[in-house]
């Protein structure tokens, strides 16, 4: 889809600029006349939402840095000064702290959309890999940002997470000392976390550019999940502007309203009260938890009894995303045409939500009790074992992608985006994408995809 440019410079200055730095042409080809599948639904708007949130975070972050002091003696007080004395400081900080939550919310939806519609599959593996890199950078940035207010959760969260690396055999201790710049999380740690928290968003912005570049080579995936045939390019696509600038714009406005509800009506709903207690290295909060968006990974860490293997499992849970394009053996992209895979997808979503829930619980607490044993201790399922079951399901979903594509029978896939719609004129008018197109009559499925697609 990165075909020839349709940009026509009109004014003299545009022509002058175009011959020297064709930046207007780049923008025009990327965001105005960029051919976009005409059937993208609202799940596709989260890329635009994420760009806006990144801009919001960078903007609010830069101004907050003008008032924040990265020193163990002043950090907590400087944040409180931002909240109480700096003009609009309360709003800027609440936008920034809730912005992190919004960033993850939109990211998770964006990732699940990619999984549901097979956007990670050939020829879009590079977009997916860059997206995984972005997710990892986002986690690192959010973690370091959470340390900066230097409250109790900030401090002990930093202690726990940096100690994770200490689990690595032989070099672990050297790495943690190097990371801390001392024998414990202390002033040098806070200083460098601030420097890196300022740096990483710009790295993220750079990788976002690569992510969009990689997207614009094969073009957008779409809910039908087919590659648009060359001869149907005109019929199956519309220009990005105005069709998707308006659709994305509407989604962004709705998302920002939800964001504003948190910022202005319940700004601490997603935070933890203990982070309003100044950091004290001598006392750990009774129940230490990360922010909500990292709870599923925290649950996986806690589910494994061995320290090193727990850390390995936690990193593997993110690492598994990187290899998903090569685990999945099905050539049908969209889960609309893969009933079994669709069922497993929803199971996977529930598993992730369940892990998030477990991450916030104490491992020994009981989910339910069926009886008491001789010592009067309750017997049943505690959160530790629930986490273990869910961890197995989480990795099981990835493992299931290998055989699934080989054995399942996908439904017939339409030959083009417009085919099911045009052959269905005067029909129910609903989306109907989930029902087998063959049952709608009118068009013949492509012979190549009428049979279950298998490899090998």
């Amino acid at each position: 889809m990165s075909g020839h440019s349709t940009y026509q410079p009109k004014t003299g200055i545009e022509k002058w600029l175009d011959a020297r730095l064709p930046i207007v042409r780049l923008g025009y080809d990327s965001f105005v006349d960029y051919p976009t599948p005409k059937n993208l639904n609202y799940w596709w708007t989260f890329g635009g939402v994420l760009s806006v949130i990144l801009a919001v975070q960078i903007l609010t972050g830069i101004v907050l840095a003008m008032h924040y002091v990265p020193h163990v003696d002043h950090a907590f007080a400087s944040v409180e000064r931002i909240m109480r004395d700096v003009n609009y400081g309360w709003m800027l900080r609440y936008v920034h702290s809730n912005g992190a939550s919004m960033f993850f919310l939109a990211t998770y939806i964006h990732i699940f959309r990619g999984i549901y519609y097979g956007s990670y599959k050939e020829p879009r593996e590079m977009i997916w890999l860059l997206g995984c890199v972005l997710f990892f950078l986002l986690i690192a940035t959010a973690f370091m940002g959470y340390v900066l207010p230097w409250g109790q959760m900030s401090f002990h969260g930093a202690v726990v997470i940096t100690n994770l690396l200490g689990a690595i055999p032989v070099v672990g201790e050297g790495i943690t000392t190097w990371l801390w710049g001392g024998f414990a999380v202390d002033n040098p740690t806070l200083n460098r976390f601030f420097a890196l928290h300022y740096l990483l968003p710009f790295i993220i912005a750079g990788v976002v550019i690569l992510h969009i570049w990689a997207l614009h080579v094969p073009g957008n995936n779409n809910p039908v999940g087919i590659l648009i045939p060359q001869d149907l390019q005109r019929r199956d696509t519309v220009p990005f502007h105005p069709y998707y600038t308006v659709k994305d714009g509407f989604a962004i406005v709705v998302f920002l309203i939800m964001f504003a509800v948190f910022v202005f009506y319940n700004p601490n709903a997603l935070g933890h009260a203990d982070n309003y207690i100044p950091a004290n290295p001598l006392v750990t909060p009774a129940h230490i938890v990360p922010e909500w968006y990292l709870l599923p990974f925290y649950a996986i860490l806690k589910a494994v009894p061995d320290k090193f293997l727990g850390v390995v499992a936690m990193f593997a849970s993110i690492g598994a995303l990187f290899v998903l394009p090569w685990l999945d053996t099905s050539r049908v992209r969209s889960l609309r045409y893969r009933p079994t895979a669709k069922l497993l997808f929803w199971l996977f979503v529930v598993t992730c939500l369940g892990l998030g829930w477990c991450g916030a619980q104490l491992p020994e607490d009981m989910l339910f009790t069926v009886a008491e044993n001789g010592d009067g201790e309750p017997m049943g399922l505690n959160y530790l074992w629930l986490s273990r079951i869910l961890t197995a399901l989480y990795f099981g979903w990835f493992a299931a992608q290998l055989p699934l594509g080989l054995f399942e029978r996908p439904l017939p896939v339409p030959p083009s985006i417009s085919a099911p719609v045009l052959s269905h004129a005067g029909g129910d008018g609903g989306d109907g994408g989930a029902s087998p197109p063959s049952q709608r009559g009118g068009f013949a499925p492509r012979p190549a995809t009428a049979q279950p697609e298998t490899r090998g």
Partner: protein
Amino acid sequence: MADTPPTDRKLDDKPLSDGAPSETITGVEAAQHVPTRRDFIHVAAGAAAVGGAAMIAWPLVHQMNPAADTLALASIDVDLSKVVAGQQITVKWRGKPLFVRNRTPVEIQRAQQVRLGELKDPQPDAERVKQGNEQWLILVGSCTHLGCVPTFGTGDYGGWFCPCHGSHYDTSGRIRKGPAPLNLAVPEYEFLSPTSVRVG
């Protein structure tokens, strides 16, 4: 010099080994990995660039390791006279909490009676205290799992309990149950007098 490219090539592409006659050196053979002086220059330049990059990278990496003033953190003296039997005090040492516990005879007895086979990180109680001062247990109060501060006198073994991920330590600070792999660390220390120790 201006009109002698063939001569230049002959000189440059002369094999390092003396065996091959120079007139057989053609572009095709050079591509077949007959090492030439030019290859040598490429390898040498590449090696110098990699070495240079490593020399530039090291200061940028090493600056993150503890600075001289951090390493020079003084040892601390702890006054034991205020710690009554059955209690502990927590002092900050090298940015971490240090537990100084005055154990009761019952606690000492319980620590000494544990069979080593039961332990995850086997170590007799005698190795974790100074002889003649068995009531004084001095430990780095940092859970060996992920560094949280265990709480005093709680857990299934009467020692410490880590609230983060549920590790239980006994009255010798040894790991008994939970995800922590090692016993609570015993720092270097010496008794200056019966009521004073110097840690570090």
